[in-house]
């Protein structure tokens, strides 16, 4: 049965190719069936493979063919199927299917319906190849594939040039990380002679000691790729702008799957990272810094999708924190629950945007509680899970991350404190969103409620966000076992109570308005901080000054080709001389003779001057 897993990426790929080649000439209904159905079948096959795997949880390898043979480098088109792969595939196909279904209603009126599903199916295929790949080269193929699909889908409404700008930004910024990752692959291949993940990790453990410098460099280069793809500091600036794409795309690519590819990469090569404790420390610090930075920024945004985008950056920061402290299972667990509740929140915001004439500003919404009940409850549950309120899925995963971070010797408690602050902010900004959008008085009237194709995915994701925390992911064979110790009880109590405090604060500030913050916000320092956080800590501004503008200026200078000026000078001199000399060409014979005589006289007298002895 597991021999058939190659069908899972192939079916969406075929559907994508079919949609591309027919170029939108198929009837709309058929496009919908193809786009959603292919991912649906992939999801069913994943389910079947999962049932099989649960019965006999042994890693399974499947080599289809040798991709290329260059010397002793022979990467195969080969899949590796274990618990981690299964979790990732379930998220991709399961959540992907729900988002595809949602899209059929969201994109109903769009003229490029077929193009949309072609890209989306292609994305699912590439993402599946990424997580199923047996070697790093095939993984890189999927990695670049999802990058291209992300680019195409962010710039999906390309008629607006701002969207094209965002798409290019997303592509170029992630490309910086990808370059680092490619260098990492080169280094690993030259050092170990293979890119096969399992073999490579085994060989690395034989070749290198913990703390050697080569695994450190390799890990940092791989981390560069992960940081770019997962929108972590310092390469996170593309994700908020990537919200220019259709909202279901943001849900699928920029929340649930592609942006977590970096987390998957690090988890997949954890054997290598264990050899480089410094690299793991860097991962943890990047995670916590990104998480706090993004949480503060999310608190200030007014565009509903930007809030969610920064919240995604922040939550992936938690996953990085988990990876950095060695809480592999918790990190992957948070990846899964985050996929559920963030997809839910994005689809919910998509429903609002769809029904509210493409309104993005949360302060122009309000009072939607009664008019859009399904969306309201989706947001309630999604925000509760995001804020990690007890008994929701987010609670189980985030709590586990914080507890394991606390147990890290040395920096542990500090990381834990940072994580707690992040959790507090998460609770405040997520319930700020709920209170501003769904309570208070209505500012814009929705012209419709969600249809069944929107309501069903929302409901299913609601259920998953609630009960997802009780799932047990089959990765204990993949990762080294956790310590199993439990820290003091007070640590746990604090972790549980912080989100509740955040919820209370959000209620007091944004709903009942008993807690007045106008004075605080209105003060000079408050205004400055507000602007600083609103702009995302000025990082975009900084990059603009540091890289974008100097680049434009340099290219502006080179546009006129300064080197050509030298050659232009030679041409000008020649032309001037030519003009002068052609003046002398009068056609008057007697002038020629006279000048010849004159010249001869001069030459002869010169010759006599130099050597008078000829006389």
């Amino acid at each position, binding site marked *: 049965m597991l021999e058939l897993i190659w069908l899972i990426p192939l079916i969406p790929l075929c559907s994508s190719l079919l949609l591309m080649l027919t170029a939108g000439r198929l009837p709309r209904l058929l496009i919908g069936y193809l786009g959603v159905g292919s991912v649906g079948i992939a999801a069913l096959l994943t389910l079947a493979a999962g049932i099989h795997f649960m019965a006999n949880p042994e890693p399974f390898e499947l080599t289809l063919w040798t991709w290329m043979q260059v010397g002793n480098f022979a990467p195969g088109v080969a899949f590796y199927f274990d618990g981690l792969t299964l979790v990732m595939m379930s998220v991709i196909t399961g959540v992907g299917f729900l988002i595809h279904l949602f899209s059929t209603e969201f994109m109903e009126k769009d003229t490029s319906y077929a193009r949309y599903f072609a890209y989306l199916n292609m994305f699912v295929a590439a993402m599946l190849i990424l997580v199923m790949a047996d070697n790093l080269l095939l993984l890189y193929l999927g990695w670049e594939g999802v990058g291209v699909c992300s680019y195409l889908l962010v710039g999906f409404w390309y008629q607006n040039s701002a969207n094209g700008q965002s798409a290019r930004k997303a592509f170029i910024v992630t490309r910086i990380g990808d370059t680092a990752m490619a260098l990492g692959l080169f280094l690993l291949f030259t050092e170990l002679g293979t890119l096969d993940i399992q073999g490579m990790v085994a060989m690395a453990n034989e070749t290198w000691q913990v703390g050697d410098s080569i695994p450190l460099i390799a890990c940092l280069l791989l981390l560069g790729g992960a940081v770019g793809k997962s929108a972590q500091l310092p390469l996170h600036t593309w994700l908020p702008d990537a919200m220019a794409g259709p909202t279901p795309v943001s849900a699928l690519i920029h929340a649930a799957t592609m942006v977590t590819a970096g987390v998957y990469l690090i988890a997949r090569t954890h054997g290598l990272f264990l050899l480089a404790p410094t690299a793991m420390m860097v991962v943890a610090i990047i995670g916590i810094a990104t998480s706090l930075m993004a949480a503060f920024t999310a608190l200030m945004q007014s565009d509903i999708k930007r809030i969610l985008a920064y919240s995604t950056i922040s939550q992936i920061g938690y996953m990085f924190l988990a990876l950095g402290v060695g809480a592999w299972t918790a990190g992957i667990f948070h990846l899964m629950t985050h996929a559920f509740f963030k997809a839910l929140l994005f689809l919910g915001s998509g429903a609002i945007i769809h029904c509210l004439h493409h309104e993005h500003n949360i302060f122009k919404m309000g009072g939607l509680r009664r008019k859009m009940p399904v969306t309201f409850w989706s947001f309630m549950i999604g925000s509760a899970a995001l804020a990690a309120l007890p008994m929701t899925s987010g609670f189980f995963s985030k709590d586990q991350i914080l507890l394991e971070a606390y147990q890290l010797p040395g920096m542990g408690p500090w990381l834990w404190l940072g994580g707690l602050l992040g959790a507090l902010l998460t609770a405040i900004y997520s319930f700020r969103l709920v209170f501003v959008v769904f309570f208070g008085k209505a500012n814009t009237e929705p012209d419709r409620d969600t249809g069944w194709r929107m309501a069903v995915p929302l409901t299913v994701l609601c259920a998953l966000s609630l009960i997802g925390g009780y799932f047990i992911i089959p990765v204990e064979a993949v990762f080294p076992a956790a310590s199993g110790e439990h820290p003091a009880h007070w640590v746990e109590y604090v972790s549980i109570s912080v989100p509740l405090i955040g919820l209370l604060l959000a209620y007091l500030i944004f709903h009942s308005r008993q807690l007045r913050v106008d004075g605080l916000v209105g003060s000079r320092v408050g205004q400055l901080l507000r602007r600083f956080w609103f702009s995302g800590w000025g990082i975009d501004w900084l990059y603009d000054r540091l890289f974008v503008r100097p680049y434009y200026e340099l290219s502006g200078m080179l546009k006129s080709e300064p080197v050509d000026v030298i050659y232009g000078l030679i041409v000008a001199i020649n032309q001037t001389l030519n003009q002068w000399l*052609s003046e*002398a*060409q*009068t*056609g*008057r*014979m*007697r002038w020629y*003779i*006279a000048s010849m*005589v004159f010249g001869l006289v001069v030459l002869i007298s010169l010759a006599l001057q130099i050597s008078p002895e000829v006389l």
Partner: protein
Amino acid sequence: MEGLNVPLNHILLVSSLLFAIGMLGLMIRRNIIFILMSLEVMLNSAALAFVAAGAHWGQPDGQVVFMLILTVAAAEVAVGLGLVLQVQKRFKTLDMDHANRMRG
């Protein structure tokens, strides 16, 4: 050898004078026939210098070159007069300055 014994310097002076006259004519005359005649004068001045030098050194080469110059001058006159005829035919004048169609 009997006869007038003219010093070489005098002959060379005459030759130079002839050359200068020819060159001056070349520069100031506009009529194409006079230009040809001036050329002839210049050629003959050179020939005179050769003959005188040959006689002075007692060498036959001067005579030989004189014969060569005579031939060249004859050929030159033949071509030159042909050109003069053509110029007269096309421009209806023998003024060199009116035949300057080739100005650059």
